[in-house]
């Protein structure tokens, strides 16, 4: 059994030197257009990286000028990751960050200096203002996820040979449907009703209130960046409402939310499409940053929020300006506010870009079964071509 390694995130936001803005964006776009084969910055040379992104944050209220956001989700501790980045990507990072204010030239080339740089500039939660950090599979290193992908492919090839070319089908196994479809909920009880009303009251949501017509103003490039076939990134910066109420409720939401743990299949509150995500307060308490690495289309991702996690969404984003009065169930207005605060990634890297959270869960069913003898029933299902969601 390998030592359990934690996954961590690092995010750095630096102002872009005005004179460098255009050149930097072109440079980043060239990397982003060919993230796996460009000659400038190849995250696949850093084995600890799961996901990474570069985002140009355009003028946000209260902050002057464009800023450059870098974030990465990685295995292990930040000190070790700083060394890995400096060693493998030092000159590529230097070429980018040298266009930012506050960055001392040469930092990325020196492992020690990069470590100090991260300690100084990386966004960090405080005890009073925690972050919500979601990770589908804590402890699963990028290397292990990739190994499981390969193991599963080999396993399926074996099954292909075993299944031959005769007709499939046949009777279901005994007990295949036992328990299925009977786990219906009995409707919300008083406590959950009370809890919802409490949240509505806290964040000022009025159920059924509609924002009326919403005019969406997203540009085409944003759309292209958000609808890759399997995985996508989301970066939202929203302004926190002024006043003590929003301050308190948001801290409460973050305090509760920081304990959100994934299910064994990588789901958070039933949402099965989040690899990594986090909410963290930035800019001295003025703005809330949300970063997510998710599966599938933008529409289905936000629909999942509305279908499965609208209470959480209201509790968090209800403290931000522009949030719909009807809450996240006013789905069109909710989508509009997300879009209006979204900044597309210029560079988005994934260590396993063709793999969903549910795929990883099933890959591990196969891998675990090969190394130990557990999960017999799940493996039986996988062999039969049914990939469990939970």
């Amino acid at each position: 059994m390998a030592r359990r390694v934690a996954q961590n995130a690092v995010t750095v936001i630096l102002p872009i030197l005005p004179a460098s803005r255009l050149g930097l964006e072109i440079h980043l776009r060239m990397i982003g257009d060919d993230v796996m084969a460009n000659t400038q910055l190849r995250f696949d040379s850093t084995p600890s990286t799961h996901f990474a992104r570069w985002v140009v944050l355009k003028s946000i209220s209260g902050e002057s000028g464009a800023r450059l956001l870098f974030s990465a989700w990685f295995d292990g501790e930040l000190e070790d990751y700083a060394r890995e980045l400096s060693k493998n990507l030092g000159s590529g990072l230097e070429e980018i960050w040298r266009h930012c204010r506050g960055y001392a030239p040469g930092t990325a080339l020196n492992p020690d200096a990069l470590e100090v740089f991260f300690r100084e500039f990386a966004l960090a939660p405080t005890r009073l203002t925690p972050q919500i950090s979601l990770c589908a599979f804590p402890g699963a290193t990028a290397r292990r996820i990739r190994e499981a992908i390969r193991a599963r492919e080999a396993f399926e090839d074996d099954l292909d040979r075993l299944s031959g070319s005769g007709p499939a089908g046949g009777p279901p196994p005994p007990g295949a449907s036992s328990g299925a479809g009977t786990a219906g909920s009995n409707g919300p009880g008083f406590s959950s009703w009370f809890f919802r009303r409490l949240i509505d009251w806290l964040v000022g949501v009025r159920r059924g209130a509609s924002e009326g017509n919403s005019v969406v103003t997203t540009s085409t490039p944003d759309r292209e960046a958000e609808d890759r076939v399997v995985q996508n990134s989301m970066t939202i910066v929203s302004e926190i409402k002024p006043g003590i109420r929003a301050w308190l409720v948001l801290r409460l939401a973050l305090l509760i939310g920081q304990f959100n743990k994934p299910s064994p299949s990588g789901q958070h509150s039933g949402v099965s499409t989040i690899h990594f995500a986090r909410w963290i307060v930035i800019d001295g308490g003025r703005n809330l940053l949300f970063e997510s690495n998710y599966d599938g289309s933008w529409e289905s991702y936000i629909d999942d929020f509305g279908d499965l996690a609208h209470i959480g969404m209201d509790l968090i984003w209800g403290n931000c300006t522009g949030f719909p009065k009807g809450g996240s169930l006013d789905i069109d207005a909710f989508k509009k506010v997300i879009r209006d605060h979204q900044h597309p990634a210029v560079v988005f890297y994934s260590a396993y870009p063709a793999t969903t959270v549910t795929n990883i869960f099933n890959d591990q069913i196969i891998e675990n079964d090969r190394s130990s003898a557990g999960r017999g029933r799940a493996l039986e299902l996988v062999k039969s071509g049914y990939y469990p969601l939970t």
Partner: protein
Amino acid sequence: MDLPRVHAKDIQGIIVSGYEHLPCSSYHFLNFESPAKARRWLRILTPRVTGSERKADRSGRPEKPAAALNVALTFSGIRALGFPEPFLKTFSEEFRQGMAEGTRAQRLGDTGSNAPERWEFGGSLPPRGEEVHALLILQAPEPAALASQGETERSGFAEWEVRELVAIKGDRPKDAREHFGFRDGISQPEITGSPARRTDPADAIEPGEFILGYANSYGMLPPTPEAPREADTERHLDAPLQATGALDFGRNGSYLVFRKLQQDVAAFRQYFRSTFTGEAAQSLMAAKFVGRWPSGAPLTLAPNHDDTAFAAKEVNNSFAFLPEDEFGYRCPIGSHIRRTNPRDALRGEAQESLIAVNRHRILRRGASYGERLPEGIFEDDGEARGLLFLCVNADIKRQFEFVQQTWVNNPKFHGLYNDRDPVIGTNTNPDSTVGERHDMTIQAVPIRKRLADIPQFVTMRGGAYFFLPSIPALRFLAALA
């Protein structure tokens, strides 16, 4: 909720009814050469538009219309008619962009052989004069009636400088089977409060999913296009909206999607003949791709052979997946009907699934085109045939586009790895690269069957997004200065 009934006379008939008694149809794609004359044409046409109101006949039953005429407009058509420019942006974004726009085509799977550049009509950047502005839909009980109805309509085109770009004839055969040989149009949601027959409460959907101006499945009013008060000189539209003070142009209207989908019947038949041995296995596998037998009997109820006992109207759609078919051993997880309507099985829990699924339903109003390829023929005869896919929905991106992107063409649907809808999906073409090749997994115990490189059987040939205005909204457009 019977609000739609109150406003039935204002709602175009195609929204509320599939007109089963009018199986012959024609679709006329029109271009307006002169805005002023097009408005005159619309003014004269509007009284002939079939509404949803049904007068009672002598025996007190609602009378069915002897023929139907409906009209829909593209974004460029509405603009050409002179819709007030600043308010054009209140139409939904996907409608404004159109079906052929790059990112929309990408999310619909209209790439490669389906790409808009290859369409017969409606494609991207048409030359001036070739833009689709309107779609006129005629429906009649038999071919002669349709022909005379078509003649009447066409006779006015020249005078009003309305140019017909394309006309397609559609047909709903008596056995209701599409060209691959399967009974189609079975699963269809019903509008809550509409007088139509009720099959399954799970299929009763809030009116606002299909008609603007009513609560949708979120309990919200769907976004609606607006018009300025001063443009409504003849006062056709209702009271202004509270939120903005503008007039609700969309109320009692909806959005319509049209897609001409060519079916390669010979390739479909050849695939099963060359992949499986024995007729029984061949028809079982074809049924597994669809999820139903040719009669319409669902595999979940009739897993082993086409059992017409399960093909009857009362039973063919009254089923759920979880109770007996959770794992897809009867109806495969990636089959056509499980993707286009996942019912109770979208997620682990039935009720939660139904709520989520019912936020992505569409009303289908399609027909077939072209002659059938005779049974037993495996060679392509060079004739074009396929399906005219029409659907009505209040929110194209949340309904039609979502179904297409997140269910039909999503290789990761329900935990799968690399499968798309094996019947209508954007699948493997001769020029497909590795990443564009897709499988079909047939769940089975103890070991599944993985079919590699599923050929693409259906090709997109043309289409557009339309708005189906209410009848007062048509009058409003005709009266624009």
